[in-house]
């Protein structure tokens, strides 16, 4: 290591820390934002893959499969679709209809949100792959969770979760009586009637109906019949979910690009400001370098190397913070953060190149300083 560069970085610890933080923030911003977006998308896709129902039947209004909705759908629709009611005929080709009530509550830790689902276990297990692998199905004010929730979260006493542990749901301690697999829908699942009692005073309401066809090849016919019978309701085909996710990825990519560019701008500006201040502070030293015969390239190289050293430290610190942030976010919330090596690399390249870019102007300015003026600088 060039001792002048190394000693300059050591000589001004506060300046170094601030500059380093600027680069680290850029890295954290990039890695965490991308990781969060990709982690949530991946998790959504994985969980949706375990739903074997071909059709999702929603109330009228905005469609948002990843978030909870008000329980705006009458569960009687389910009976109507499957068996027919006094108002409508049953839809031919439907094998099973399972009502799902979703409710988004503040996370137990107070950071972020948790999706809770009320399900009818008898029908839900027919439209998904869900199986209780440990314990039993919940009854009344009881809950089952998936394997990951059980391993990652703590009970209300801060202890690891085992069968019988209690967690806080709707502001009250609720025992965990079973573990299910695979991951599908919300991690926390209550009996449908319990959620209806807690959220809508026992009204027969749900958020969506999962509709499984007798013959998957006839799902379009079934969907067409549903659309014809319930034109105001929103009907989503499970097979379309990947393209819906892709659609959201399209706009997400734009958002991520903005974040990445913002990170680059932050790093560039912080380094530019730090190095600009540095060369003003070291004007006399630059004059001395020139008197020693240092070329313009040597002076530019010295300043750029100093910025690069700070940037390398910033990238390392930023990556460590991002990894710690991943664990903190996942421990405190139900969010998923994928720290991807590719994006750590991209963030590192952005941090390093923006630091060089930020250092270049001050460096060139220093290299072109009048040596006599620089030597007389006080």
């Amino acid at each position: 290591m060039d001792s002048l560069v190394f000693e300059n970085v050591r000589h001004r610890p506060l300046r170094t820390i601030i500059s380093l933080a600027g680069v680290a923030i850029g890295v954290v911003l990039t890695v965490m934002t991308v990781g969060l977006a990709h982690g949530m998308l991946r998790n959504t896709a994985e969980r949706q893959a375990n739903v074997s129902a071909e059709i999702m039947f929603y109330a009228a209004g905005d469609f948002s499969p990843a978030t909870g909705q008000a329980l705006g759908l009458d569960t009687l629709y389910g009976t109507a679709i499957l068996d027919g009611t006094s108002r409508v005929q049953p839809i031919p080709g439907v094998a099973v209809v399972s009502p799902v009530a979703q409710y988004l509550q503040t996370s137990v830790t107070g950071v972020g949100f948790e999706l809770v689902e009320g399900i009818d276990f008898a029908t839900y297990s027919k439209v998904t792959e869900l199986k209780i692998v440990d314990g039993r199905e919940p009854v009344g004010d009881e809950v089952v969770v998936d394997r990951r929730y059980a391993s990652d979260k703590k009970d209300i006493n801060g202890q690891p979760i085992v069968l019988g542990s209690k967690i806080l749901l709707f502001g009250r301690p609720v025992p965990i009586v079973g573990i299910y697999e695979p991951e599908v829908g919300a991690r926390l699942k209550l009996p449908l009637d319990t959620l209806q009692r807690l959220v809508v005073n026992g009204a027969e309401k749900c958020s969506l109906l999962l509709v499984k066809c007798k013959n998957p090849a006839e799902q379009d016919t079934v969907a067409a019949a549903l659309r014809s019978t319930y034109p105001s309701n929103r009907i989503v085909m499970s097979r379309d979910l990947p393209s819906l996710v892709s659609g959201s990825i399209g706009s997400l990519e734009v958002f991520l690009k903005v974040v990445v560019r913002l990170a680059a701008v932050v790093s560039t500006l912080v380094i530019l400001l730090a190095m600009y201040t540095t060369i003003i502070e070291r004007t006399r030293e630059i004059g001395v370098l020139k008197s020693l015969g240092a070329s313009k390239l040597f002076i530019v190289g010295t300043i750029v190397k100093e910025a690069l050293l700070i940037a390398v430290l910033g990238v390392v610190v930023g990556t460590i913070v991002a990894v710690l942030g991943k664990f903190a976010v996942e421990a405190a919330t139900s969010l998923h953060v994928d720290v991807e090596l590719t994006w750590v690399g991209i963030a590192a390249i952005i941090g390093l190149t923006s630091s060089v870019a930020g250092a270049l102007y001050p460096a060139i300015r220093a290299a072109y300083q009048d040596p006599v003026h620089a030597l007389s600088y006080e």
Partner: protein
Amino acid sequence: MRQTIGLETRSRHDSKMTPILQTIDLRMTYHVGKMDVHALRGLSLDVDRGEFLAIMGPSGCGKSTLLHLCGGLLTPTEGKVLVDGEEITASSDARRTDVRRRKIGFVFQKFNLFPTLTAEGNLKLAERIFGKGSGDPERRRKVFELLKLEAKMRHKPLELSGGEQQRVAIARALVNEPALILADEPTGNLDSENSEVVLSMLRDLNKQTKQTIVMITHNPEAAQYADRIIHMRDGHVVKEERPSAPPVSPALEGVHP
């Protein structure tokens, strides 16, 4: 207009030898607002190899401008500067920088050491700029030994006295074996005791290694250490003298036997 001092200098030494430093009809005019300030008005000067020259004069007489021109830090309005036979005035900035790196060592009044580096680190930096990579440890050791700084190699400038800092600055100027050392008021920031130590070391360097030194000073006593003194006024050389013998001070005893 060529002044006679250089010719006399050549006759004093070897007339066939090229002066290490030549200035020919050197003129320098600064533009200060709407005024032209003539710092040098056609100054010609030869400095022979192995000579210790002191330049004296009142403030504003053009001493520092002359030194900066000789070091290639400034470009004259007119005239020429030749360092070791190479004309640097008509050269590009890169060329002047190259000549400065290869042939000139600077010593400043305010020492101008890098405060973050040790004494040895300051020398290593000069070596790296010179293009010696990690430098020559043996050469550094010899230079430190010559300047009685062996025990101070690992010290940073703020841990050294003014006299020691200036000796490190001289060591830095010497480490690349320059043809010429340009010293700008090297004792201007030192007390009399340290001044004598530094001046004595410069004189001994000159005598023992034939190192050419051009020194600017306000101090007539300091100038007495040189072989030749030129006096400047208003951008001209107005007088030349040769001191008989440098003063001997008890302050040097034990520091520089």
